[in-house]
């Protein structure tokens, strides 16, 4: 009786979920509009804007660039974040807590401020509108997540488990391959997926440091939405949402999203 879920409460929650998911649901019907302008409901139906999207050269270039940046950021972020998380969890050294705070601090800074700050330094370093510059800027927003997830993963892996494997005759490499790596896998996959998604979707900082030569997909979409109101954005959105859902689904099926992000 107490703490039971009543029908009105159920309906209220349903409405809030509709509100929350509405913007993501609405683009699906619109993406199949054949109209030249954004009208809802569409006057005519078809895949005109999907075709247009794939034929839009600048968009496709931006997509490839974003893919490249997100992959690079994922790999480099793990390569830098994993050892750092290991050092923070497994070694004791002066300034360990400070290092942890410093590495996760970029999360606290508003991205509009961080974007400007990065612009001010990168303009001097001639990194504006370059692949390197975008990767470096994205790394600063993805690595805090890597560090957080991986330090948690390391702290749930007691050293004695690795020692036990050693005592049973496993060489250091075998210990890493058979014990450490499998036990870190959930955190590893979560870090990688999150890094990729965050980098691929990053727009505020990118707006400051992309240039005409090098622009990312979200920036391109942003510019497009700002200047045009045709339904092509809906088609792009559907593709992006589908890809995101696929990634979430895979993580959820293999690891459990609530377990990996909830902690």
């Amino acid at each position, binding site marked *: 009786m107490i703490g039971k879920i009543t029908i009105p409460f159920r309906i209220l929650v349903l409405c809030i979920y509709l509100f929350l998911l509405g913007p993501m649901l609405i683009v699906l019907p619109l993406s199949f509009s054949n109209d030249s302008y954004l009208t809802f409901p569409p006057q005519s139906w078809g895949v005109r804007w999907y075709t247009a999207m794939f034929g839009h050269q600048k968009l496709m270039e931006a997509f490839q660039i974003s893919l490249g940046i997100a992959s690079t950021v994922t790999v480099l972020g793990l390569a830098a974040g994993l050892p750092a998380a290991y050092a923070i969890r497994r070694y004791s050294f002066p300034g360990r807590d400070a290092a942890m705070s410093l590495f996760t601090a970029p999360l606290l800074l508003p991205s509009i401020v961080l974007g400007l700050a990065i612009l001010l330094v990168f303009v001097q370093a001639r990194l504006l509108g370059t692949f390197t510059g975008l990767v470096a800027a994205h790394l600063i927003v993805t690595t805090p997540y890597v560090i957080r997830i991986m330090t948690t993963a390391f702290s749930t892996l007691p050293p004695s488990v690795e020692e036990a494997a050693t*005592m049973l*005759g496993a*060489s250091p490499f075998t210990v890493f391959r058979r014990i450490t790596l499998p036990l870190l896998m959930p955190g590893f996959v979560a870090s990688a997926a999150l890094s990729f998604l965050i980098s691929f979707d990053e727009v505020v900082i990118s707006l400051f440091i992309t240039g005409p030569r090098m622009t990312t997909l979200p920036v391109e979409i942003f510019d497009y939405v700002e200047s045009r109101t045709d339904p092509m954005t809906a088609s792009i959105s559907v593709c992006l949402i589908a890809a995101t859902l696929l990634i979430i689904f895979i993580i959820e099926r293999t690891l459990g999203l609530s377990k990996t992000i909830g902690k």
Partner: protein
Amino acid sequence: MQMVERRGASANGDARPGDSEPAFLKLEGITKQYGTYTAVDNLHLDLPRGKLLGLLGPSGCGKTTTLRMIAGLLSVSGGQIKVGGDDIAQKPPHKRDIGLVFQNYALFPHMTVAENVAFGLEMRGVAKSEIATRVEEALEMVRLPGYGTRKPKEMSGGQQQRVSLARALVIRPRILLLDEPLSNLDAKLRDEMRVEIREIQQRLSITTVFVTHDQVEALTMCDCVGVMSGGKLAQLGSPEDIYERPANLFVADFVGRANALEGKIEDVDTVRFGDGVYKCDTHGARNGKATIVIRPHRVHVTPNRDRTLVSVMTNSVHGRVLRVTYIGDVVQYDIDTGTHVLKAEVHTASGGHAFAAGEKVLCEWKPQDMLVFAGGGQ
């Protein structure tokens, strides 16, 4: 691989090694230094094949450090660790062929029980078919047959401990190390596991080092006990030696309960404390300060009477009962002798007189129950 097999077989074949047998595990002056702090200080220790050695001591005495050095998980700062004559001090831990059971079990959480137990065999390249039989044998040995498909987290603490033991033993290690294996179990289970570990150890006749801070474990399970303090071996001996003939005040005080009384040596067979003079063996000392240790359960408490009456106990002192603590199998008395407070323990089953607080009593004890440590103070 063949070597390991044969070694295991010969260890099994050696039914009852005599005390005269040469040491199988030999620690020769091993030392562990952390900066200026010495955790283990020039430790020498011999353990014959098939024996169970208990390393007993308070927190920070260096017993776990010693164990981890034998295991190879800590490097030695100096000294040699010899197993069957070869120095292994510089060998990496995974080549030492030593089984280790951890305090927190350290089972691999992502593997089943069978996979856990099989891990060491896999590392040794044992054939798949043989692994299966040996894993099942090992699980039977720890009374967990058929549990192979479970995950560690589906098992109780005691079961996990057994798996951990099976995993360490299935590789037929040259030496088995147990690091406080019972401290995470509840009291009843601890009693059971104590017996079980001892039985398995004796059946396999495996040379074993057991680290514990619990004197009951050390005294009941081990062939010999090494009491450690401040990185040094305070005494090495049989459980009886340790309890009845402690080499120094630290051991006397740490192992078992003790009345430690400040007194003076009067002659080779006489000491004085408080107002009385008592007969004992001073081990040749003729004078000087001394600390006298009497075990509470060796103090006989009798109704008040004239102490000049001759008794078999020889030593006696008058006192008044300050406090009575009923524990079940024994009653503890705190007895005020005027100059000291003496603790005495009386078995309730003995049918002896039960005294009340405030009652006058006579405490008696035998000369051999007084342990005299010349020098006094701690």
